[in-house]
């Protein structure tokens, strides 16, 4: 992937409001995000010849609604780990000429349609013992991290507190009321050691990201944001328990991070803001260790004292993340990376922001490093 350094640019981003919208479906939300992204970059809609749909029921219906006849179409499942994978796929398509302008579209109507995670009707292997839900898998991992490294739930609370503070500065965020470490400790337990404030939100919304080659990007409305580095590693061979890894996807995150850093020619100390997939707060600790922002087992201490907050050493999830902004499954975090590099983030803007990293530490770990064009 090294040859793709700075070859592909994000030129347009579009989001919707976030909340509960029973009156509109996923296609309607995605169409709004698409229109906003087209307006954001000023591209002629009919030039878009690449379409990737994620969590949208039918790519064909989506294309029909938007009046698109692409040369390149991909449909991805409604899993949280897809955004980084989608961006890598789009880069390959643009570099090979399979498409010239790619729109990545994601929509989620989980709130208004009462989507539940856990207790699915399709019987799972662990159901008879009462084990279910991605949250329980992360609770299991956090307990292991606590046992192995002495991490505390108080330290974990720093993650939720930091992201909620950022959400309080973000007009679109779903949960804006600031919280304290004591609020985190007193929140309703769901699957201990995790509590309510360790869980992502579930809300409706949609995101669109438009990419093109760096050359074509110069002709569009806003300064392009370049994709300088990407890295990837999946972990399927140890995935007997869904959303769980007994080693916190450490080696996968390390490998994906190192590949992205090498390609971009930067290291963790160059990162001005981190956009970290936060389905559950422990994922942030695992990501920080895997990427090398701190040593193995040291993430609990690392996040203390507001280090992840704006003004701290490593402003992370400046939009509030999945915990407090919006459950857009990584997609909105990539949009926030772009907006930070463009300087569009108002009260939550990171000063002098030049390098932003996205990471999703999951069974499909991806990292993307964005820089100013």
């Amino acid at each position, binding site marked *: 992937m090294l040859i793709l350094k700075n070859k592909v640019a994000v030129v347009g981003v579009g989001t919707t409001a976030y909340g509960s919208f029973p009156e509109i479906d996923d296609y309607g939300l995605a169409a709004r995000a698409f229109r906003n992204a087209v307006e954001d970059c000023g591209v002629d809609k009919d030039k878009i010849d690449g379409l990737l749909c994620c969590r949208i029921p039918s790519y064909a219906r989506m294309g029909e609604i938007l009046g698109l006849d692409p040369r390149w179409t991909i449909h991805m499942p409604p899993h949280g780990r897809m955004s980084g994978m989608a961006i890598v796929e789009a880069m390959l398509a643009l570099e090979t000429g399979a498409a010239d302008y790619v729109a990545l579209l994601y929509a989620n109507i989980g709130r208004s349609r009462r989507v539940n995670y856990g207790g699915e009707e399709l019987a799972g292997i662990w159901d008879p013992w009462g084990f279910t839900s991605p949250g329980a898998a992360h609770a299991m*991992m956090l307990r292991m991290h606590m046992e192995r490294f002495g991490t505390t739930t108080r330290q974990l609370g720093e993650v939720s507190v930091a992201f909620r503070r950022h959400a309080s500065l973000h007009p679109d965020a779903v949960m804006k009321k600031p919280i304290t470490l004591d609020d985190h400790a007193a929140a309703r*337990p769901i699957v201990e050691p995790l509590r309510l404030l360790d869980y992502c939100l579930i809300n409706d919304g949609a995101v669109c990201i438009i990419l093109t080659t760096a050359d074509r990007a110069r002709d569009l409305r806003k300064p392009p944001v370049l994709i300088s580095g990407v890295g990837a590693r999946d972990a399927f061979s140890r995935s007997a328990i869904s959303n769980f890894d007994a080693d916190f996807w450490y080696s996968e995150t390390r490998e994906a991070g190192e590949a992205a850093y090498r390609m971009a020619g930067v290291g963790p100390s160059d990162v001005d803001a981190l956009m970290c997939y936060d389905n559950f707060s422990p994922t942030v600790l695992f990501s920080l260790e895997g990427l090398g922002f701190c040593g193995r087992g040291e993430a609990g201490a690392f996040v203390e004292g507001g280090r992840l907050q704006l003004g701290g050493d490593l402003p992370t999830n400046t939009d509030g993340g999945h915990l407090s902004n919006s459950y857009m499954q990584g997609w909105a975090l990539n949009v926030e990376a772009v907006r930070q590099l463009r300087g569009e983030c108002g009260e939550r803007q990171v000063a002098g922001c030049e390098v932003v990293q996205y990471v999703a530490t999951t069974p499909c770990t991806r990292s993307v490093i964005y820089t100013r064009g």
Partner: protein
Amino acid sequence: MSAYRKPLPSDDPLLAPFWENAKAHRLSVQCCRACRDRHFPPGPVCPKCLSEDQEWETVSGRAALVSWVRFHRAYWDGFVGDVPYDVCLVALEEGPLLLSNFSGPMPEDPRAGLPLEVVFDDVTDAFTLPKFKVAP
């Protein structure tokens, strides 16, 4: 006797031997006849050597506690009366990881590495759940 309302084992045919063995109070994992790799959950081929020549091997029942969580939410109606309830993750002496329950209350001093052994809970006439207790 009231009907059992918790989730029953899935009807995945690959898993049937595991549940049949459990009913006979044997804990078992899939084992590859070609390379002797032991794995669980089972698959149609060995994940190491891809052989289809797989058998079920009764294991010792000895395990070490890896992790544990406490459910405060009942994701199935059948668990409403149980919350909060505990689920443990154990590493079998033979290698594979297994999610299970403690056979009684949570051990007083749970910690990673705590030695456990399997016990069999005949929860209905039709199926038996392997659970774990602290090894003597």
